[in-house]
Structures are given as structure tokens and as C-alpha cells.
């Protein structure tokens, strides 16, 4: 493979200072590409210029908008547009990688302003939230400019096919598999335990399903413990529970990345009872990489990530009785647990950045055939050329 270093521009639609799946995906990808010797610049909305990694350029302060069923921190408007344009003009990029370009954001603006090799990645997967694509007639001619489309999951690909009538290739989100493979078992968390990571107060994370299943599990496995890591208020949460269930819960608060890996490697079962709203389920890929035995609801994202149950156990979503049955069966059969999690561990390597980023870079290379580089669309317009406003 010829080693040629490229100039790559990546646009993140969501505010850089709010944690999120898309943001961390872009951060990891950018760092991987930089480590490979490429020059990478990320354009993202940000509240302040401080604490930004050196490869991130701020496009201005994001606005909180209720969008697509959640509050998104987005940015658009004439000021943002001129920042996007000058970023493209100064960047002299070989290829642009736009994330979530179908929503009103700087990704869409960049796609509008730029001419040349462009790749778009679509993260969102939702059949119901039509509003996300209500602007289709305006978006279509813009999205058309993308040389290649990537969807992060089959569900995202299906969403794209329904709403924008266009096909995409599936490249999953990446994880640093090594960090999880090196995890060690911590005796505080091992044994008959079920681990859960996430904002446990959010209904869609599904902790209430687990609580409903707990009495049934307790009857068979009296020493079961539920370990919960993630932000939230344990006191008000515990107050809602029956007294005899309370002492089964341990709250760890927010844990560090290395603790997270050890946590996943230690717990008897890693449980993800989410009721929906997941487009990829990166946490399950991480749990598999750490060698955890995974028990997850059968929502589309988890079902496809766990290979229909080949690399972890699925239970009927929002069905507490089924969750309890599957959990008991797993906890009583350590042999089977080991066998499945061993397979899952090998499978998780396919989500490693070494694999995923190379696949994304292959797509870049294909988009770059012809090698014109990225320019501003306005430079190519006839009247601007006539007036001598072109940069060339």
C-alpha cells in the first residue's frame, strides 16, 4: 500500500463540549488518522476555545435545540456559514468527512459550500422521527454531492434508505479493543454480579426492567448483586425500591476508562436492558472486548451487534420475566458463559480502530480518485469566475 499522507477535514455537527457517541467517534478517528501521519482538522461547534484538542477548530457557540427527540447542541446560520467556508478555503483538504449531514448543522453547510471529494457518515437510526428528514427536498441536492455514504449500522442504513432514498455501506463505530483486552478482574465486582453502565435514571436505559426482574432472580440466586456505574442520584432512586431489594444495589458513580474495562471484565453478567433509542450500542462492543458475558434486550441495534445472539444473550425487550430467566440460566452455567464470551471477545476485534479506521480510509481513497482536492463551490460559479473572484 503506497503511503501518501493526506489532508483530511472532518465536520462534527454536535457541540464538542458535550459528551456523545458521534463526538467521541470523531475524536478517536481523528487521533487514529493523525497517528498514521495524516493531517486532520476537525470543525465543531464549541462554547469556548479553551480545552480544545489542537486538531479541533471551533465554529462558534452551539445552540440547544429540541431535535429528534433529544436536546441537540447544534449550530447554523450566516456567521457559522462564513466560518465553515473559510475553514474549507484555508484547509486545502484532499477529502472532507461530514458526520450526520442530513440534519441542519455545520455538516450540511459544509456539504453545501464545498466541491470535491466528500464522504458522509450517518449515525441516526429512527423510523418514527420523521421530522429529522422533513427537510428532504432541500437536503437531497446537497447530499447528492457526497461521493460515498457510510451508515454506522444496518438500522441507520435502513433509515437512510427510507428517508433519503439512497443506499450506504455499513462501517461500524470503532473501539480501542486493546484497552479492554488488557483489563483485569477485580474481586470487588466479580462473583454473582450483574453490571450496568449508563445514566440509570433515563427510562430508555431500561434499569426499571431489571428491577422488575430482580425478585425472580433473587429466589434462585440469593447472593445476586447489581452494580451500577454512571451519573445520577442513587438516594432518590433507592427510595422508590422495596426495602429488601435496596441492599442488592451498589452505586459506583462515574468511573474512569480503565475502571470501566476492569468493571466489564469482572462482572458475572454485563446487562443492557435498553428499551430503545440506541443506534449502535458501542458499549456492548466494549463489553465483549473486555471478555464480558453480555445479556441485552433484543432491540435492533443490539440484535445486530450481538450477531442475533451468537456473541451474547438476548432477551425480549421490556420483558422482565424473560430477562430473569436468561439471567438465571447464565449465572448457573459458568461454562456456557465462558464459551460465549470467548467467541464475543474474538468478534469484538472487528470493531477495533485498526480495522474500522482502515475501512473508513479505504472509502476516503475511493472518493479521492481523480485527486482534485476540496474547493469552495462558489469559486466555480460562472459569475464569480467572470468577476475574477476565483481563487485559482
Amino acid at each position, binding site marked *: 500500500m503506497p503511503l501518501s499522507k493526506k489532508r483530511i477535514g472532518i465536520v462534527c455537527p454536535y457541540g464538542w463540549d458535550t459528551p456523545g457517541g458521534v463526538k467521541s467517534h470523531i475524536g478517536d478517528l481523528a487521533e487514529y488518522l493523525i497517528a498514521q501521519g495524516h493531517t486532520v482538522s476537525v470543525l465543531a461547534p464549541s462554547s469556548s476555545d479553551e480545552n480544545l484538542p489542537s486538531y479541533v477548530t471551533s465554529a462558534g457557540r452551539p445552540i440547544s435545540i429540541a431535535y429528534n427527540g433529544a436536546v441537540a447542541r447544534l449550530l447554523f446560520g450566516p456567521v457559522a456559514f462564513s466560518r465553515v467556508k473559510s475553514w474549507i478555503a484555508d484547509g486545502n483538504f484532499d477529502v472532507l468527512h461530514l458526520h450526520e449531514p442530513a440534519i441542519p448543522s455545520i455538516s450540511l453547510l459544509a456539504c453545501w459550500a464545498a*466541491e470535491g471529494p466528500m464522504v458522509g457518515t450517518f449515525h441516526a437510526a429512527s423510523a418514527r422521527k420523521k421530522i429529522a428528514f422533513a427537510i428532504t427536498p432541500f437536503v437531497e*441536492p446537497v447530499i*447528492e*454531492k457526497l*461521493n*460515498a*455514504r457510510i451508515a454506522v449500522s444496518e438500522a441507520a442504513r435502513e433509515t437512510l434508505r427510507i428517508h433519503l432514498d*439512497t*443506499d450506504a*455501506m455499513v462501517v461500524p463505530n470503532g473501539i480501542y479493543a486493546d484497552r479492554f483486552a488488557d483489563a483485569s478482574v477485580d474481586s470487588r465486582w466479580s462473583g454473582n454480579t450483574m453490571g450496568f453502565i449508563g445514566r440509570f435514571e433515563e427510562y430508555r436505559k431500561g434499569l426499571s426492567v431489571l428491577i422488575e426482574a430482580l425478585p425472580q432472580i433473587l429466589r434462585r440466586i440469593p447472593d445476586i448483586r447489581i452494580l451500577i456505574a454512571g451519573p445520577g442520584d442513587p438516594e432518590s432512586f433507592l427510595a422508590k425500591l422495596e426495602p429488601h431489594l435496596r441492599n442488592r444495589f451498589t452505586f459506583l458513580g462515574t468511573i474512569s476508562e480503565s475502571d470501566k474495562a476492569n468493571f466489564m471484565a469482572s462482572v458475572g453478567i454485563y446487562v443492557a436492558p435498553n428499551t430503545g433509542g440506541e443506534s449502535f450500542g458501542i458499549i456492548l462492543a466494549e463489553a465483549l472486548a473486555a471478555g464480558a458475558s453480555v445479556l441485552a434486550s433484543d432491540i435492533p441495534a443490539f440484535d445486530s451487534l450481538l450477531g442475533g445472539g451468537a456473541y451474547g444473550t438476548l432477551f425480549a425487550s421490556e420483558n422482565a420475566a424473560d430477562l430473569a430467566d436468561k439471567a438465571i440460566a447464565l449465572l448457573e452455567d459458568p461454562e456456557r458463559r465462558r464459551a460465549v464470551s470467548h467467541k464475543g471477545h474474538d468478534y469484538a476485534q472487528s470493531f477495533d480502530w485498526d480495522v474500522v479506521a482502515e475501512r473508513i480510509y*479505504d*472509502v476516503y481513497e*475511493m472518493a479521492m*480518485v*481523480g485527486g482534485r482536492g476540496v474547493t469552495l463551490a462558489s469559486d466555480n*460559479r*460562472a459569475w464569480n469566475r467572470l468577476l475574477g473572484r476565483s481563487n485559482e
Partner: protein
Amino acid sequence: MNNFLLAFFFLSIFAWYLSFLATRLNRLHHRVETSWANLDGLLQRRAAVAIEIARSEISDPAASLLLTFAAHQAREATVRDRSQAETGLTGALGILIENSADTQNPLEQELLLELKDLTAKIKVAIAMHVESVTRTQMVRKKLFIRLFRLAGSAPEPVTYEFEGDVF
């Protein structure tokens, strides 16, 4: 006077819209060309690897002959015969891969690995080409584009039959 201004205004809007459509179509035609150039390049590389494999110990003499023939055909085919030639090469390589699961020679392993890598890339390239062609065909059907002949003399882009094959 006012009517005249209004007419002028709408006329310029319309002219702008036509120019917008023409730019859009031109861009799509360009996308079809580059995605085909990309796919074509990958297919040429696949034929080259196939010939290498035919010369190596991986394939028995009969398979070698079949492979060399298919690869040369794919390389030299005219546009009209290209699709059939590529399908032939895909088939020949498919048979070979099935029968050569356990080779120990590092050089041969490298060849097979390269072939696997190329096959994956060709799949992506085909998807990109098909997408750009169908999109272009869709836009070319638009009323104003046909009415004002905005496609000019650019030939209607087509997908090839072999692109529908499951690799």
C-alpha cells in the same frame, strides 16, 4: 413598467434555477465518471493478481489455465463484453478460493490476502458506482432537465450486469 420588472425578476429566478439544475447534473455525471474510474482501476488490479495466482502453486494446472484465460479476457474485453468477462473472472476466483483454504507458503498467503482485500474494496466501489448511476438517472428524468436538454450530449450512465453479482 412594474409588470416588466416583475417578469424580469421571475425570469432571472428561473434562469438561476436552470443553472442550478445544470450544475447539479454536471456534478452527478462527474461522480459517475470518478466512481467508474475507481472501480475500473480495482478490477484491473484484481485481474493482475489473478494472473499472479495462476502462476503460483496455489492453483492446479487446470485451474491456472482457466484463471489466466478469464483474467486476460477481463483485461482486454471491450466495453460491451466487459460485464461477462468480469463475471467469468469472479467465478474462476470463487472456485479457486474454495479449494485453496490451507496454503502454508507465505507468498501465496499474501496473494490470497491481497485478493481478499481487493474483493472487499470492489464491493464498496460497486456500491458507490451503482448509487451514483441511479441517482443520475433519477435526476435526468426531471421535467426541466429534459425540456431544456440540460444533460447536453452526455451519454446516459448505465450500471453493468456484473455489478449485481454477489461476490
